[in-house]
């Protein structure tokens, strides 16, 4: 168990619980024709989560920190793929499905393992074009296919 993460998560959930409780107070009290309004359920949840977070924080003081050996995480690869996924989402409607998917796949393939660029290009093309025509051609769905210039 990771003590640091548990503390941070405990505090984050605590704040979320309190915020949820406060915000739930803004919901109107009772609905027409019903004695129990839309407020009570979220309010109760806010209280429970707050209580549980306090309990979790209390637990983090009880157990001994385990010396977990530091694993080497591949942050660089992760952030490149994470970044390109966000860009992919951002550009999907702007430059169309085919082009954005092709670029995303190509970048991601090459990030995970350099080399064999020809294979990467072939697979990316087949996937992006294939999915697009299967979906919009055969199934009649609508996707923003290509850039609208």
């Amino acid at each position, binding site marked *: *168990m*990771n003590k640091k*993460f548990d503390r941070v*998560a405990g505090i984050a*959930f605590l704040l*979320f619980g309190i915020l*949820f409780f406060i*915000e*739930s107070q803004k*919901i*109107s009290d009772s*609905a*027409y024709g*019903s*004695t*129990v309004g*839309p407020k*009570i*359920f*979220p309010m109760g*949840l*806010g209280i*429970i*989560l707050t209580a*549980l*977070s306090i*309990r*979790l924080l209390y*637990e983090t003081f009880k157990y001994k920190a385990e010396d977990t050996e530091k*694993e*080497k*995480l*591949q*942050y660089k*690869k*992760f952030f490149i*793929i*994470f970044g390109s*996924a*966000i860009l*992919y*989402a*951002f550009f*999907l*409607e702007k430059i169309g499905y085919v082009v954005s*998917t092709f670029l*995303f*796949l190509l970048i*991601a*393939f090459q990030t*995970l*393992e350099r080399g064999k660029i020809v294979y990467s290009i072939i*697979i990316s093309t087949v996937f*992006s074009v294939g*999915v697009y025509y299967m*979906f919009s051609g055969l*199934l*009649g*769905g609508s*996707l923003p296919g290509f850039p609208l210039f």
Partner: protein
Amino acid sequence: MDTLQFLADGFGVAFQWHNILFALIGVIIGTAVGVLPGIGPMSGVALLIPVTATITSGMPTGAAAASSIILLAGVYYGAMYGGSTTSILLNTPGESSSVVTTLDGYQMAQQGRAGAALAISAIGSFVAGIISLIGLVLLAEPLSNVAIKFGPAEYFSLMLLGLAAVSGLAGKSMTKAIMMTVFGLMLGTIGIDAVSGIARFTYDQPILFSGLEFLTIAVGLFALGEVVKTVLEKDEETGSIAKINRILPTKQDMKDSTVPILRGSLLGFFIGVLPGAGATLASFFSYTTEKKLSKNPEKFGKGHIAGVAGPESANNAASGGAMIPLLTLGIPGSGTTAILMGALIMYNIQPGPLLFDEHPEVAWGLIASMFIGNLMLLVLNMPLVRVFAKIIQTPKKYLLPMIIAISFFGVYAVQYTTFDLYLLIGCGVLGYLLSKNDYPVAPLVLALVLGPMIENNMRRALTISNGDFSIFVTKPLSLIFIVAAAAWLLVPLLLKLKGRKIIINEED
């Protein structure tokens, strides 16, 4: 016999050519999902919901729902078959319910009996699948007849029981599991309240009015969460695949495994029916039972065929048993069934006692297709086991980006908003962080699905009682459910205080 008539109609649905095709695709993808470590049945099903939704978009709602649930359920039980393949051949379980299979299965493979182990697990899974389906057919009608008499108070308490059971058994820390459940319930309140029409926690963002889409969150937390994990953590090299010499088991093997298969099937079925306890728990239980009852327990762990036959039957039977609470009560007992339920709700079909009356083609079509699917798996698995084992060699560098691309496509094709894509990415990172630190995500998804229903039933019950909360404990059935829910949370806690080790269900 009404049930037989319905079952016959169900076969009528299942034998439509496109449904046979869907079942076939489902079980093949399911087997692949089971073989690939990293993608469990939950992420597999979540990933395929949007895909099936688009494929079936041209059909009328009822038929579309039947077809897609046939495919998705195929993925679920297909994964149970596939998971054993890698456990036996590579000593790496493809999913958590096949962990015990490695104990004896890999030993058998080392002794050159890989083929027999694989065959026995396929046969065991098949027998278990059929037994659990017979149970499903027998129990479905009576159970839904009981459930139809439930009022809102009973439903509220029953759902509470479902949530308590899943959080009580999930993960290492119960505090964290309950936190995740509550968090899921909270996320479920976002959007316009179905009863009063008041917008809650939307902050005037039109995109939030319909609430957070369950599908996006499930795909993000499970499928992308796994991708993030595999990208970040260097994957170990997979070992060499054991050779398969002879596929058919010997007569002695069959004799040794008949009883374990039957025992495992029954045990697995009943564990599967219980909410919260899933396939993983069933396979563990079956293994320990077989070991205890065996005349020579020292053989276990050294390649004893009963150690493969029992657990493999149990996990498959459990996946069939888990369908019962989902279909008859509308209460999913595990993460995967929660996702299946989400899929049905997407088609505006409410699982529960009325399902058998209102949409018999969905309920009975699914049951009938599971017979067919299990048969297909048996036929496919025996000769094609070598091919399936090869799937594990799919290079990760191609697999991971494609999973991202498929989930992007799926979510966008259903939702048509970029907002959901960002939410998807966020959930992926969140899912990794949470499950890495023992915060189980399955209760979160379950709570997200059940949340609105729990709230509605609670408010309806309270409206009946004029705001008096005692309605939940004065109605006898409701009281039983609440006591059971409390017991489910308290008993493990008490056992822990006594210093006993408890089994937890880590289902992905």
